[in-house]
């Protein structure tokens, strides 16, 4: 009885150990599955949230805050800029691209809303004029330098004969004195 009882108890312990390992494994599986489901159906993983944040900031920094002086929508503390950032976030989360979102704001506020002036129409002047001015300036410098280089060197100014006589005299006196 004792051995048999021990054996039962031992068998039971062994069985109990196997059951324990199984329960732990099942629990681990359950936790992993639950975490996976939460990730798939619930809030986006932090990395994707960070990506959305980055995208919103990137687009907002290309837009002018319309109620500020020289501030982007990304940097402005104004209420309207905050609402604009929220709207950009909504559109990013809807899967809209940068170009589409910028076009939406341009369709509402005009090209003024873009911090970088567009490279067409009257605004093209802003991009072209500095380079044009630089080219004209460089051309001017080249022409002046070429004219200076082509000019004949000035003829030597004839020395004052009285001054030359004095120099010669002093040199002779000096040589006589040292000799």
């Amino acid at each position, binding site marked *: 009885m004792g051995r048999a009882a021990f054996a039962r108890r031992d068998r039971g312990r062994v069985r109990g150990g196997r059951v324990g390992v199984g329960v732990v494994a099942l629990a681990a599986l359950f936790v992993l599955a639950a975490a996976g489901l939460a990730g798939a159906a619930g809030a986006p993983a932090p990395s994707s949230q960070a990506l959305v944040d980055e995208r919103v900031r990137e687009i907002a920094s290309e837009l002018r805050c319309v*109620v500020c002086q020289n501030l982007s929508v990304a940097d402005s503390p104004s*209420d*309207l800029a905050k*609402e604009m950032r929220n*709207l950009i976030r909504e559109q990013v989360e809807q899967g809209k691209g940068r170009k589409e979102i910028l076009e939406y704001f341009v369709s*509402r506020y005009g090209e003024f809303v873009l911090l970088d002036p567009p490279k067409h129409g009257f605004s093209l002047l802003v991009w072209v004029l500095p380079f044009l001015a630089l080219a004209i300036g460089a051309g001017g410098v080249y022409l002046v330098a070429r004219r200076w280089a082509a000019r004949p060197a000035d003829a030597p100014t004839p020395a004052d004969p009285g001054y030359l006589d004095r120099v010669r005299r002093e040199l002779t006196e000096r040589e006589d004195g040292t000799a």
Partner: protein
Amino acid sequence: MSWKKALIPLATVPVILLLAYGFWTDPRSIPSPLIRREAPNFRIAPFDGAEISLASLRGKPVIVNFWASWCFPACYEEAPLMEATWRKYKEQGLHMVGVVIQDKEPNAREFMQRFGYSFPNGPDPGSKISIDFGVYGVPETFFIDRQGRIAYKHVGALAPEVMEAQVQALLKG
């Protein structure tokens, strides 16, 4: 004077013209790309009354006024004119909707009470209507014709003569 000598003073002409253009234009004035285009549709829940959608007013002239109780003095200056215009022309089919920007309801209600507003006014949560209309300040007023297009946009307090001319144009159109 040879043409070379005339070149230097002549070169300053485009620069002066560019500067003159810069000084002549108002840097705060932003031309709206929405003029003569279809007004963006919106739904608004007025503080008192049923929800209104702009699309449901198609075929009727509509004035959309963006305002706030914190917008002093411009909104306070034009408020009596808004209410007077509404009372004068509502029988002729004019519709008027007030969109309240970034305001607290009690303050907005106090403003409406002060000026006896009887046309529908409602909040703009998230400033979605304002951004859709390209609003960058208050007050701004949009005159929408019977075809649903924005005929005119006014930035700042409306003067009676501007209001009268624009309403007449809307009613005739």
